[in-house]
């Protein structure tokens, strides 16, 4: 897009989306200003920082942040940038410390971000420097949710629960114990890799692009799931269920399942009797604990804007950090129940590694597609043709059988809703409008 021309407007309800939003630097810069600087973003997981002094380097948009636990046990999210000349005050990715001391001129900060050390302060800064206002910049708000940590730069942002809205039970199905108890997950590993593609392709893929299944034909032909050695093809055992594609006012979208009323256990670990017995037992307990609510399970989803999940197996949260209009840094946090037997964790981690990420047999093909779709947004001739988002246009209904806008067929409605919310953020809409509380 030439300098000075207005940003393209996205009106997804038409069924078309301009290609520029996937390649324009001006759009990318606006996203940083008005979207990533305001929305609730996934920062990490408490299992990464169990003890006071533990820290983990993370990101919020293009901003580097430190996720840490201070001496009092409080979880903090701090901009990793010295208040003097901006140097990163913490450069080891994980560890334990009492202070963050800047490598440049050695200002130092405590775990709550307070500026506690300035070399030669009395000679050089006496009566001038106000230390109290020179701490590391904290996130505007931080929320801990079932082990996960989220933050927003905007102190005026609504509560995380209000931001989630009705997507909450779907996210709960990701974060809760397989046996239905609340929370209880831990991160067993993190992938970080570069995808030369716009971040929105990945976010959109996870919020319910079920239509892209043909791109995974190769794994489906050979079978890579936990029942593959027993002769099952595909990526996993499919359970009989009603598939739902649901979108929400804040921009979230999910692909979830509703099991039949009798909610039977579907074998999914045929290659490993011990894991199968474990998950069958978890399923029974979940049904006993949650009753009717246990029929809902989360398949994939995106919490607006860039935190996606796989809710069943391989289970994890993937964050699509924007590096530039054509580059994304993907981070996947792999989740298991912390108290699962060691053998079950071993079965899961092996499945995760062969399925997910840049070495994963499934996701390699995703990255290939996103790269070339992004590249197709550069040319002036290509850009004359917007992308088509007409799939299942209008085929949804509100609140049936779950809250949200529900489609019972494969749909691009979740994507249309995502770009509606995206446009509202780019327009700088007030918070009530951004979370559907303005009516």
């Amino acid at each position, binding site marked *: 897009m030439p300098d000075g021309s207005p940003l393209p407007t996205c009106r997804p309800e038409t069924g078309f989306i301009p290609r520029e939003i996937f390649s324009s630097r001006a759009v990318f810069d606006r996203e940083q200003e008005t979207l990533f600087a305001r929305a609730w973003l996934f920062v990490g997981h408490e299992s990464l920082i169990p003890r006071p002094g533990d820290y983990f380097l993370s990101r919020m948009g293009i901003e580097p942040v430190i996720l840490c636990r201070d001496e009092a046990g409080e979880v903090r999210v701090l901009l990793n940038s010295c208040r003097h000349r901006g140097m990163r005050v913490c*450069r*080891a*990715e*994980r*560890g*334990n*410390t009492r202070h963050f001391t800047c490598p440049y001129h050695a200002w130092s900060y405590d775990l709550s971000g307070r500026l506690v050390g300035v070399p030669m302060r009395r000679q050089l800064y006496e009566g001038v420097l106000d230390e109290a206002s020179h701490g590391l910049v904290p996130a505007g708000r931080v929320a801990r949710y079932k082990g996960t940590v989220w933050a927003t730069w905007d102190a005026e942002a609504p509560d995380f629960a209000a931001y989630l809205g009705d997507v909450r039970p779907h996210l709960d199905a990701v974060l809760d114990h397989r046996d239905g108890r609340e929370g209880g997950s831990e991160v*067993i*590993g*993190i*992938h*970080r*890799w*570069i*995808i*030369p593609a716009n971040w929105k392709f990945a976010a959109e893929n996870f919020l319910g692009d079920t239509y892209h299944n043909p*791109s995974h*034909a*190769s*794994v489906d*032909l*050979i*079978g*890579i799931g936990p029942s*593959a*050695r027993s002769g099952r093809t595909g990526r996993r055992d499919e359970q009989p269920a009603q598939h739902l594609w649901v979108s929400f006012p804040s921009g979230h979208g999910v692909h979830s399942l509703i099991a039949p009323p009798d909610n039977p256990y579907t074998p999914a670990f045929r290659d490993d009797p011990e894991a199968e017995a474990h998950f069958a037992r978890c399923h029974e307990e979940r049904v006993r604990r949650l009753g009717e609510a246990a029929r809902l399970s989360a398949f994939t989803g995106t919490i607006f804007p860039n935190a996606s999940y796989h809710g069943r197996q391989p289970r994890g949260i993937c964050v699509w950090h924007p590096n530039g209009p054509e580059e994304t*840094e993907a981070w996947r946090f*792999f989740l298991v129940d912390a108290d699962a037997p060691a053998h079950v964790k071993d079965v899961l*981690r*092996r499945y*995760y*590694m*062969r399925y997910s*990420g*840049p*070495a994963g*047999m499934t996701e*390699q*093909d995703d*990255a*290939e*597609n996103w*790269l070339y779709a992004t590249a197709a947004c550069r040319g002036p001739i290509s850009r004359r043709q917007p992308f088509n988002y007409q799939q299942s246009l209008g085929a949804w209904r509100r609140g049936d059988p779950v809250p949200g806008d529900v489609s019972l067929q494969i749909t691009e409605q979740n994507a249309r809703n995502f770009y509606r919310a995206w446009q509202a953020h780019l327009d700088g809409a007030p918070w009530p409008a951004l979370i559907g509380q303005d009516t």
Partner: protein
Amino acid sequence: MTSPAAEAAIAIGATPPPLPPDPGLLLLRQEVEDFLLHEADLLDERRFREWLALLAEDIVYFMPIRTDRAFGEQAGEFTAQGRGISWFDEDKWTLTKRVEQILTGVHYAEEPLSRVCRVITGVRLLAVSPDRRQVTARSRFLVRQGRLDYERADFVGSRTDILRREPEGWRLARREIILTDTVLLAKNLSIFF
């Protein structure tokens, strides 16, 4: 995890000093080097099934993930084989699946197939069993991957391999691959190392 090869693994960062001079080892090193270069040729030529045949049935194929740690805390730099998530921590079944996937012809990350050149160099023996039927070898690699028109990825690192002499010849029983990346600066690890 408890195969003889796993027990003989040399811990990352604990490379032993060179073996004492021994004319018999010269020949052994030549055999190992030929094996590794032949293997690279098979992979460059996409003779994946023939490559699989060179892997022991109990192979461990491991590429850890690295993270930067503060001075004095480097113990956590590499993920561990047998625990958590690494780039690769695989057995022969999974490696066979990866080959089968490429051979479907619709694995789009490898269709069209990547053009790969593996430069394997600096082969040396780190350990030799008394009966000389099991050898631990270190090598360095530069792997260049080309895809379609503009895509190029370079991988530089080292490998620590355990080779075992079986009735049919040398077989790879364990491979540990160390890259320099923390954040992987390539979009995929769709090739073999």
